[in-house]
């Protein structure tokens, strides 16, 4: 068998993005683009997002209204742009509150162990037994609909993932050489916990929070879609989809474009999570 024969390989397509654009860069790019859109919403949006113009109800995309208008004559493009402020806020606060609560509980549980740990682990088991959205809806039922209720419900339900991650890290790290050394130097518990162990433990949670942001965003949109989150007339993508659902046979644009907005933002977070996980060597 000749050298050339063995070396010959089947013809392969060169995928244009496969090597040059990393998931990290693509995800960060999408996210920055949405951040800029939200930041400059007043400049970018051609119309007032809540102004109702009875003359242009349910108009298809045109030069005057690139993404069409809804049943109240509001400009869909302007509403999609303004809604990015609300949805980015949902992703941000919907991650931060559970992150903080979970980190506190997880570190206490992992550091002190004993009955405190047992108690929290049992609580986590019970919270995990409830389907995520069902428990959130039950909490929102009690405290009433609205964005604030969403954040409270999110924190009460979402902390478990972070607590489990941080606890697992603490269990490993508290027996590591450097933590032992810190304890033997007579440092206080809180100093060892927050100055020595926490910086090492938190990396995995940060990567996880990126993929968690996808779930939080979808949850926030779903709850608003159900009518229990953001209240009209504020523009929010999930609610816009709900408002347009009744007109899908005649005005597809009202539901389609907010959905595309959610998908792109979620994809930005997913790619960022994948890229970060790969770059930092953290696996979910």
């Amino acid at each position: 068998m000749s050298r050339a024969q063995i070396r010959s390989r089947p013809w392969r397509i060169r995928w244009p993005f496969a090597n040059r654009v990393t998931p990290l860069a693509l995800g960060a790019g999408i996210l920055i683009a949405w951040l800029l859109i939200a930041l400059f919403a007043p400049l970018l949006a051609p119309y007032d997002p809540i102004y109702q113009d009875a003359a242009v109800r349910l108009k298809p995309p045109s030069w005057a209204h690139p993404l069409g208008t809804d049943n109240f004559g509001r400009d869909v493009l302007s509403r999609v742009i303004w809604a990015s402020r609300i949805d980015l806020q949902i992703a941000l606060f919907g991650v931060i509150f559970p992150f903080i609560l979970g980190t506190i509980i997880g570190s206490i549980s992992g550091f002190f162990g004993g009955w405190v740990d047992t108690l929290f682990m049992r609580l986590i088991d019970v919270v995990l037994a409830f389907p995520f959205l069902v428990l959130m809806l039950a909490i929102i039922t009690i405290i009433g609909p609205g964005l604030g209720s969403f954040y409270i419900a999110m924190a009460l339900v979402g902390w478990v993932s972070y607590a489990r991650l941080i606890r697992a890290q603490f269990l490993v790290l508290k027996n590591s050489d450097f933590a032992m050394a810190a304890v033997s130097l007579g440092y206080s518990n809180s100093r060892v916990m927050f100055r020595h162990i926490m910086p090492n433990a938190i990396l995995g949670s940060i990567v996880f929070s990126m993929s968690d942001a996808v779930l939080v965003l979808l949850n926030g949109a779903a709850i608003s879609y159900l009518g229990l989150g953001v209240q009209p007339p504020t523009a929010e993508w999930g609610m816009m989809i709900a408002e347009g659902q009744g007109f899908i046979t005649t005005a597809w644009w009202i539901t389609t474009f907010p959905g595309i907005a959610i998908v792109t933002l979620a994809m930005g977070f997913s790619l960022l999570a994948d890229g970060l996980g790969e770059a930092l060597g953290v696996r979910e």
Partner: protein
Amino acid sequence: MSRYRFVLYRPFQLLPVLVGISIITFVLVRSIPGDPARVLLGPRSTEEALRRVREQFGLDEPLWLQYFYFVKNLFKGELGKSILYKVDVLKLIATRIEPTLVLVIGSVLLALLIATPMAAIAARRRGSWPDHVIRIISTAGLGFPAFWLAIMLILLFSVQLGWFPVTGYGRTFVDKIHHMTLPCLTAGLALAAVLTRNLRASILAELQSDQATAARARGLSENTVFWRHVMPNSLVPTVNLLAVNIGWLISGSVVIETVFAIPGMGQLLVRGIFTRDYMVVQGVAMVFACATVLVNFLADILTVSIDPRIKL
């Protein structure tokens, strides 16, 4: 057979979780501000009815005793009456189980049907353009809101093509399948995105595993190695993933039932929230939680039966 002994004692280990579920639902409903009897019966209730509820649930007693009454009623299968439907909550839920069960099982089957070949193609032809396309689609699929995907599918299959009805559940078996295809597809596609990503990763690891190399060294063809040795080993973590995702799938079904107006438990829950039918909300949340615990238990049995190494 000793590996299956856990089937007998696991239910006892799950007891604390079940107690926890009852405590949480109890606390949730009792935290609603106002006279609990009026909360449970709604604003337009008679004095007579209020008195009966106070007695049944011990609402004049201290809180810990109220929980005791609550559990006692639970064992009797009395979760209270729905304000809206005027029937026992458990009976009401019983009539709503079928559509939800069909939706969950149907979407898991569709998800496996979609994800298995996708993951197989992507992993076996790693780095090829089908792999890239599948990876991009499955990454994007993670971020698809179920309710939006549902509407888009309705737009395509019901409005444009007219293949499936827009909403509803149907009466006969065939009619039900017809109605449930799109809802199952919606949830199935969302689940397939998660499954494909994970299955692809575990197939890739198994393809390079020592046992696959040894199977090739015995002369088995690449196809035999794949389907008889790589696939069974890759599916073990997938069963676990499905079990972990059951809560997520139920959450999705709540939204999907609302979009398609399917008379299942999810729709019952959402209606209950809007009509302040707290007994219904409490009952549905509890049944969903118990179902999640049950599914995880069944998944453990399934895992033990496909992986002889695992001992629980």
